[in-house]
């Protein structure tokens, strides 16, 4: 029994979601090995070696693996799959891209976005935008699983696993990376932040998000958005929280000018405390909010910024 966890990283650093995925992988029982695939990824491999409970780190370092594109990643993982009975990754856009390709090459079904591990073969996952929870059991020879990392506790970082280089098989050259346009921000990452401040259609413009950013900076929070705000072009796509965007579960989620469509609720209703600020008192967001404030956000948000200053934030 051993599990291969595919690390999420940017070559120099391990992404925090990998720690949460490792926390989940430990629940499967058996050894956990971490695969760091990338180009010049020694930094990320060192990070992976520190994950508590990980017994080995496999490093596949090749230029074609730089951006973890699906075709070379799948070829690599399939070449290593023989030693493992579970292959898991965080349900990031990377994991969601290459994992089904791996599953199909291994001729096994995949279980996506697992939110709870009942036993090593039985899992819970949200369906219908989180409006139902499916308990699913697999008897596949190899399990291919993606994990909704917000549902799991992060593993510690007091480990010292051995790092081992693995040789890469012939990697298909079907796709080529051209460029990327990444949102630069000094704020915490949306899926890892302890506090998230999100804006919706009610923000009326991208410029108005500056108000939310000022509140977020006082709280050390990330800034998110509803689909409506992204579709309207107020903020980039990577801000989107919801069924098809990111799932978040911070200690505090502040929804500003968000009506609360079920597709949005799907991505944030596991937050510990939810605050809603909306001028429409009938907005569905109030049905899931712990604290609701019926107010015009254009007066409430600047006030909030000031009040936070008053308590020393």
């Amino acid at each position, binding site marked *: 029994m051993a599990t291969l966890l595919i690390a999420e990283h940017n070559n120099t650093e391990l992404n925090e979601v990998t720690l949460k995925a490792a926390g989940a992988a430990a629940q499967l029982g058996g050894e956990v090995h971490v695969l760091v695939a990338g180009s010049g990824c020694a930094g990320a491999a060192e990070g992976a070696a520190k994950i508590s409970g990980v017994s080995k780190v496999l490093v596949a370092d090749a230029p074609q693996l730089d951006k973890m594109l699906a075709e070379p990643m799948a070829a690599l993982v399939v070449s290593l799959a023989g030693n493992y009975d579970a292959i898991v990754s965080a349900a990031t856009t990377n994991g969601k*891209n290459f994992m089904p*390709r791996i599953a*199909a090459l291994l001729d096994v079904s995949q279980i996506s976005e697992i939110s709870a591990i009942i036993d090593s073969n039985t899992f819970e996952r949200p369906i219908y935008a989180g*409006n139902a929870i499916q308990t699913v059991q697999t008897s596949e020879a190899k399990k291919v699983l993606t994990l909704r990392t917000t549902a799991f506790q992060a593993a510690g970082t007091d480990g010292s696993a051995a790092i081992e280089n693995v040789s890469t098989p012939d990697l298909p050259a079907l796709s080529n990376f051209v460029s*990327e346009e990444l949102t630069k921000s000094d704020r915490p990452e949306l899926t890892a932040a302890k506090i998230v401040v999100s804006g919706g259609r009610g923000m009326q413009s991208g410029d108005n998000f500056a108000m939310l950013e000022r509140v977020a900076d006082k709280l050390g929070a990330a800034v998110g958005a509803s689909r409506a705000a992204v579709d309207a072009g107020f903020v980039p796509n*990577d801000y989107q929280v919801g069924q098809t965007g990111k799932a978040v579960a911070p200690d505090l989620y502040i929804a500003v000018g968000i009506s609360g469509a079920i597709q949005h609720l799907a991505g944030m209703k596991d937050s510990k405390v939810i605050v809603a600020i909306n001028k429409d008192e009938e907005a569905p967001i109030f049905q899931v909010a712990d604290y*609701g404030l019926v107010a015009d956000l254009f007066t409430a948000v600047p006030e909030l910024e000031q009040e936070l200053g008053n308590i020393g934030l």
Partner: protein
Amino acid sequence: MKVLVPIKRVVDYNVKIRVKPDQTGVDLANVKMSMNPFCEIAVEEAVRLQEAGIATEIVVVSIGPSQAQETLRTALAMGADRGILVNTDAEAEPLAIAKILKAIADEEQPGLIILGKQAIDGDNNQTGQMLAALLGWSQGTYASEIKLDGDQLTVIREIDGGLQTIKLATPSIVTADLRLNEPRYASLPNIMKAKKKPIDEKSPSDFGVDIAPRLKIVKVTEPAQREAGVKVETVSELVSKLKNEAGVF
């Protein structure tokens, strides 16, 4: 270039679903069904490629019950040329769907297959990637823009950190994200015309694919319900409650 667009009939995205009391699944009786929204975006993109003179024929496929015929008609009314219905009442898993689609792709030889990135019922987000694997083709998932230049396909992808641009060798698989386009409504004349477009009927066994499920659904339950909390009157009351009652800062 021929374009193949697999589509799925799902519970309409506006419907608030109900879990069956016996926990065997979601109640689909007398519920409004529609084309999966991401599949609509996929069909729209194919139609735009045809309008741009790039796509020569658009074939839509649906694997599902006989009512999926209506979903195919919707796609035909949007501008697709012909349909294939693979008729089954069984709930096939993404791997089985991908195997059927592979067999169809082997017959039809499209240059491009566009799918929705996920269906809003199972939320699996697997079929396109699995199909790409089985065909040995490149994949451009979560597309927010595609450009075809000869046999070079450029895809702009929505990724966690922002946007990524990749170039793919064709034939290729693209999965549509929300912002790829805004699907059109079919006009009445086009709806009438669609009634005369051909739909070929098949069954999974025609393709030699075993669609028996590999996974066992133990149960389907309601998620834990959140109770609505309290309304606060002022921002200072809100901050005081968050600090003293919720203890979040």
